[in-house]
């Protein structure tokens, strides 16, 4: 058994920021990650991070209050306003902190951090480093964690929580390189494992964004909140769903249909291409559904040609490379075929703004958590912000919890029991072997069902069919077997173990979506086209039950901005 005061699961921006803070507070903290932390999915974020720095000539009177309003309106009023206020206030010092730590933001001529317009924002307040902001922030944070001497257990795959007498006391992790489970005992655990994009077959997300961290919490009895709210990014590459940043439209890019029209004029006449993502994705999907996709097919164009080669190469070099390598299209020369693609989980582990959950000693931050600051629809540039703001806060809260404990004890027999349970589970998978249910068939059917039945537009009939499919997959995932039982870097084992969690999380998305009989933000139902504040201005809570999710709810914190109709 290995011991640290605090275990952080996940080495992306949220996890590392939590760890750096805890280390500075004198806590013995360690990070466990299934990849070298610099490879985490935070690094795929492109367009930028929001903070009301007022550096842009057009944003001289920008304030955190305006950032808060845009965020709440963007959320379709489902965000908790106290948390949004905290995030938008914290944004300013925390971006300066990232800069002081070396983050290479792009610059205006006066030497200040450059900012660009982004969707749903009243001012150009998205701080950026070209179109690789996540990569730059993540590497800066890794450098900071290395400098701070945070121990990192790299290529350790965390598989379950250790819970003893109603308190979280560590995790069980699998050594991906050597094989074998190990108990990591701790006084507290922070989950920071990212989103659940890969439950969908059309995601922009990294392959490791499976939602497994959410599933571990869910299985341990912690509710998942607002899982039905799944963001579809308007501009994923047609062939691969790889992200083309919103910054492309922030820099002036157009969306065009088969007739060559800037069709956003019909849907968001003021904001045009910079409407929030839910509205823009619905607009694109409507054009496609009504036969105005390019050549009548299922995609439209992102056209950057009018920006000119210099601006594209200077401000958008990353997406140009991606379009060339993955779609065979150079945006300088040709419009880029794009399609709305699953991008972000607004929902996640139910936390407050300090990362606390219902389980003492267990915290969550970043995309795997739901504070909620994004409500029913996240604004572009608020996810990188969320990682550092709430990663920091969770690190502080967990450190204070640990330092306030009167007595510390090791996880004792509960650690050994949790390891034995994991070993037994893998033993069953191995015993069932190759002839059992095919885990990759289950995975493929799950990702297809989520894509087809819980997409941009939803209705009761298709969702019920999708939910039934998912219930069937839930039964089948209990019968899958391993194809390979080797100890060293067993990809088959990792992907088979994580599948069960993915199915649980997908079912929570499906159940929440089916139950919510209104349209709000990203959850758009053709059979219930209107927002229903009298019945549904509340968070969905899904609690794990072997038969399927049990749904409850919790109130939304209002107070600063009264709900009103969203127009852009």
């Amino acid at each position, binding site marked *: 058994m290995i011991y640290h005061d605090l275990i952080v699961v996940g080495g992306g921006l949220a996890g590392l920021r939590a760890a750096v803070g805890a280390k500075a507070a004198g806590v013995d903290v360690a990070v466990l990650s299934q*990849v*070298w932390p*610099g*490879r*985490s*999915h935070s*690094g*795929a974020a492109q367009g930028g991070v929001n903070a009301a*720095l007022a550096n842009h000539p057009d944003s001289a009177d920008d304030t955190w209050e305006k950032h808060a309003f845009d965020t709440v309106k963007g959320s379709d009023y489902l965000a908790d306003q106290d948390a949004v206020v905290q995030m938008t206030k914290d944004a300013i010092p925390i971006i*300066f902190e990232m*800069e*002081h*730590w*070396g983050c*290479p*933001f*792009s*610059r*205006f*001529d*006066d*030497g*200040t*951090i450059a900012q660009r317009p982004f969707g749903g924002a009243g001012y150009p307040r998205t701080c950026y*480093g*070209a179109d*690789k902001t996540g*990569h*730059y922030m993540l*590497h800066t944070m890794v*450098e*900071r964690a*290395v*400098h701070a001497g945070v121990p990192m257990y*790299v290529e350790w795959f965390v598989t379950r929580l250790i819970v003893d007498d109603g308190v979280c006391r560590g995790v069980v992790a699998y050594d991906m*390189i050597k094989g074998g489970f190990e108990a990591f005992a701790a006084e507290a655990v922070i989950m920071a494992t990212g989103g659940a994009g890969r439950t969908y077959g059309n995601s922009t997300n*990294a*392959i*490791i964004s499976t939602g497994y961290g959410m599933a571990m919490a869910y299985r341990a009895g912690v509710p998942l909140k607002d899982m039905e709210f799944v963001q579809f990014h308007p501009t994923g590459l047609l*062939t*691969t769903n*790889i*992200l083309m940043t919103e910054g492309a439209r922030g820099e002036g890019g157009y969306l065009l249909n088969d007739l060559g029209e800037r069709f956003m004029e019909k849907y968001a006449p003021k904001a045009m291409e910079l409407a929030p993502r839910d509205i823009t994705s619905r607009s694109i999907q409507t054009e496609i559904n009504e036969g105005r996709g390019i050549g009548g097919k299922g995609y439209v164009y992102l056209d950057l040609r009018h920006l000119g080669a210099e601006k594209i190469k200077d401000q958008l070099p*990353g997406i140009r*490379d*991606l379009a060339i*390598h*993955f779609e065979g299209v150079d945006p300088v020369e040709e419009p880029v075929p794009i399609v709305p693609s699953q991008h972000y989980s607004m929902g996640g582990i139910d936390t407050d703004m300090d990362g606390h959950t219902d389980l003492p000693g267990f915290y969550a931050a970043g995309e795997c958590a739901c504070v909620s600051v994004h409500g029913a629809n996240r604004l572009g540039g608020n996810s990188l912000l969320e990682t550092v703001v709430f990663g920091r806060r969770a690190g502080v809260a967990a450190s204070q919890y640990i330092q306030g404990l009167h007595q510390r004890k090791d996880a004792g027999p509960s650690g050994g029991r949790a390891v034995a349970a994991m070993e037994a589970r893998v033993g069953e998978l191995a015993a069932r072997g*190759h002839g059992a249910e095919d885990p*990759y068939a289950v995975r493929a059917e799950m990702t297809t069902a989520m894509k087809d039945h819980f997409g941009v537009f939803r209705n009761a009939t298709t969702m019920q069919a999708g939910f039934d499919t998912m219930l069937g997959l839930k039964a089948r995932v209990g019968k899958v077997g*391993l*194809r*390979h039982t*080797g*100890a*060293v*870097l*067993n*990809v*088959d084992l990792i992907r088979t173990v994580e599948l069960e969690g993915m199915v649980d999380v997908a079912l929570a998305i499906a159940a929440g979506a089916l139950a919510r009989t209104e349209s709000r933000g990203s959850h758009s139902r053709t059979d219930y086209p209107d927002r229903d504040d009298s019945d549904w201005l509340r968070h969905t809570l899904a609690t794990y039950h072997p038969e399927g999710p049990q749904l409850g709810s919790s109130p939304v914190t209002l107070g600063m901005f009264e709900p009103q109709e969203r127009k852009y």
Partner: protein
Amino acid sequence: MPDARFRIARWDPEHDAPGAVRYDEFTVAYESSLTVLEGLFSIQEKLDGSLSFRYCCRAAVCGSCAMYIDGRYRLACQTNVRHLGSEITVEPLPHLPIVKDLACDMTDFFAKYEYVKPHLIRNSADPEKEIAQSPKDRQRLNMPIDCIMCGSCYSSCPSVWGEDNYLGPAALLKAYRFEVDSRDEARRERLPHFDNERGVYRCHTITNCVEACPKELNPTEAIQWLKGAAVRRRILGRLK
């Protein structure tokens, strides 16, 4: 549907003698587009569950899947089989210890990265707002900050092959990234970490790293700049 024929290097420390790499052949059918990484997943799912490789972003930004594909350093996720020959040979990064199949042991690689003090060093107090940096000063960072730590350059460098202690192109590129940052105040603090027998003088400008880099970066040029900086500071006594 066209077929992609893969020839994949295999080695499992649990079963194979040291160095006894063999090549297994697999055929994967595809419709119009197939990346090498997608091909590997297809093989792992349908043909041989024991195949090991690293993966993460599948969008050329995380650096997990650098491999030696048809005799060139490439990211498996960024390489489409359409652009390769009829038989595709996939091997782990050459000259590095193999963990299993297509995954190498990167322990030394990351230890060397940590050795060069890869963080912004500041001595003066931070301002309340950002540390000002002109667009021109920021531009000097454009090349080195795009490094994804994939290890291709490190694997390709004959000086690394010949000297285990040599820091190699990626770590030195990282040192350069901070040395040329107008905000960095390391002066002579980072200097002993690249101006030594493990450091810049072991680069003989063979430029394999430049050719190998899937992000088209130029570690060789960065290392020559560091040599100049070392001379300026150590011999001429300058601070920057």
